[in-house]
């Protein structure tokens, strides 16, 4: 075997490559990744290939039709094609889920990191703001925000991002307070490492596990929040379909009992999405931790 030269050894494996390899070896995470990619591809391409109008045009000749050829998932009370509505709804629900959850997590991490890292008065002010947002009823502030901004997809995302960051902030702050007292952080101080470098290179990477878990839950929660907002007419307004308002449409006892094609598909899609996001989160968490054996 050829002896590696010293500089080869030095450059051989970057952390990112190692982590990526570990991620791809993580079976559950890969299953989640495949699932979410399929869901995304379906929502993007199914409406492109089919006739989008079937999701909106009323068809009184086929009301509450069972799944059949031409209507793979049947039709709803207004004769609209459920499959097309499900896929169009996927576009909205997924984008709200991803964008709003990631934005709110980023806001939360930033504020939590500032609070935990600087401490003192900064900490006090940020955490009191967090507390007051947490103890307000979410829907009430949301109503105020949306009535000021007007309903719509963008404003729904904005409202969720602005109000749902509190958990991420608290978790990040707690982790930082805990890690700050660790000896390797003191070792950094003794070595004269820049404080911000310590924060970004040592504290935040060690705080990543609970943050990732929180983000995945947050995505799931956001999809559900969007559904409740849409139901109240504060989110994405009808007739635009989302998984959430499809579920709400079907929430009568008769529908639930006799017309399962109206609610099972949307419910299954939400569940599958949330599940696969959670798997991916677990995989990311394990792949980023060199102590985990994958």
């Amino acid at each position, binding site marked *: 075997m050829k002896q590696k030269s010293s500089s080869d050894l*030095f450059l051989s494996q970057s952390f990112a490559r190692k982590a990526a390899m570990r991620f791809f070896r993580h079976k559950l995470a890969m299953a989640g990744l495949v699932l979410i990619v399929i869901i995304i591809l379906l929502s993007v391409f199914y409406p492109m290939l089919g006739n989008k109008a079937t999701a909106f045009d009323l068809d009184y000749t086929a009301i509450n039709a069972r799944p059949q050829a031409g209507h793979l998932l049947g039709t709803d009370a207004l004769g609209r094609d459920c499959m097309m509505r499900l896929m169009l709804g996927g576009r909205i629900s997924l984008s709200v889920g991803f964008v709003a959850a990631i934005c709110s997590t980023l806001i939360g991490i930033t504020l939590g990191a500032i609070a935990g890292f600087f401490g003192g008065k900064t900490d006090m002010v940020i955490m009191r703001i967090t507390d007051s947002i947490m103890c307000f009823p979410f829907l009430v502030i949301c109503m105020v925000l949306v009535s000021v901004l007007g309903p719509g997809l963008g404003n729904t995302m904005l409202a969720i991002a602005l109000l749902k960051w509190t958990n991420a902030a608290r978790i990040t702050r707690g982790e930082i307070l805990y890690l700050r007292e660790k000896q390797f952080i*003191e*070792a950094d101080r003794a070595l004269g*490492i820049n404080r911000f470098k310590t924060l970004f290179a040592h504290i935040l990477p*060690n705080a990543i596990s609970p943050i990732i878990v929180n983000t995945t839950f947050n995505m799931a929660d956001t999809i559900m929040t969007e559904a409740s907002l849409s139901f109240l007419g504060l989110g994405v307004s009808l007739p635009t379909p989302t998984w959430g308002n499809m579920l709400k449409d079907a929430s009568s006892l008769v529908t639930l009992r006799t017309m399962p094609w109206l609610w099972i598909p949307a419910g299954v899609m939400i569940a599958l999405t949330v599940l696969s996001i959670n798997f991916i989160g677990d995989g990311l968490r394990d792949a980023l931790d060199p102590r985990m054996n994958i």
Partner: protein
Amino acid sequence: MPDSNTLLEVRDLTKFFDTPKGKLHAVDGVSFKLERGKTLGIVGESGCGKSTTGRTILKLIEPTSGQIIFNGEDITNYSVRHMRRFRTQMQMIFQDPFSSLDPRQSIMQLISEPIREHKICTTSAEIAKRTLSLMDTVGLARRFLNSYPHELDGGRRQRIGIARALAVNPQLIVCDEPVSALDVSIQAQILNLLRQLQRDIGLTYVFITHDLSVVRYFSDDVAVMYLGQMVEKASSDNLFANPVHPYTKALLSAIPLPIVGKDKPVRKLITGEVTSPVNLPDRCRFFSRCDMCLEKCSSACNPTLAEIEPKHFVACHLIDKEKKDVQ
């Protein structure tokens, strides 16, 4: 004009921590001088302020009062920013090699970090070269370059800590119980490594430990601390041959000796517990546990260090009595 051979001088260093019950005297009036290339051992039991002294010298903890003079430069009031540049001069080796390394960084990242931070090398090829040569210096095989701390044993991890400290070419290293978390066989390896580095690079050590046999092997001078104060300080040989303070005597007699049977020396045991370091009265700190107490010890003020013979300092009321006896 400062003595050019003195690398570190500490004058009347104190550190009080505020607690709900009052002021906790962690370090209380510690003074010493340390010559270039020498080792000062600081010994004492848990909670006597050894580690706090070491951290205060490095200004990881702000001193309450006193002066720290490094290389003729008074660094006591240096700002955090100024201190950061000054860290290239003085470094620290930590007690626990398991918690003092970031578990998410590879050996390469850990060792090259201080090199990058202080711009000791700039190009990545130079950084790589220096990292590898540091690993050679501390006796870490190059194949561990991409390993993570949890994959290595305590001795190897401690070598990483030493390499990190050496990376910035310091003159002084404060070793805070560097071997007490390690197995005995590995302790010897690490001590030999530290000693060899001292010979090769001319490092100066402040060596904090509670292990007297280690300090005897390792130090030129030894200072014994009790409740935040130095009670005795002498050259290592002198202190072990001729301890004066009752506390030092008790400590030395606690070293296990390989003697059994009739010749086994009688141990001098200390009874009682350490006095609380909060709101201490102005009298001898060792008063409540001392078996050689004089009448004046209960009332008179706290004894200060006095030179009983060249370079042998003791803080005890007994010395005054001995002097009187001689007269």
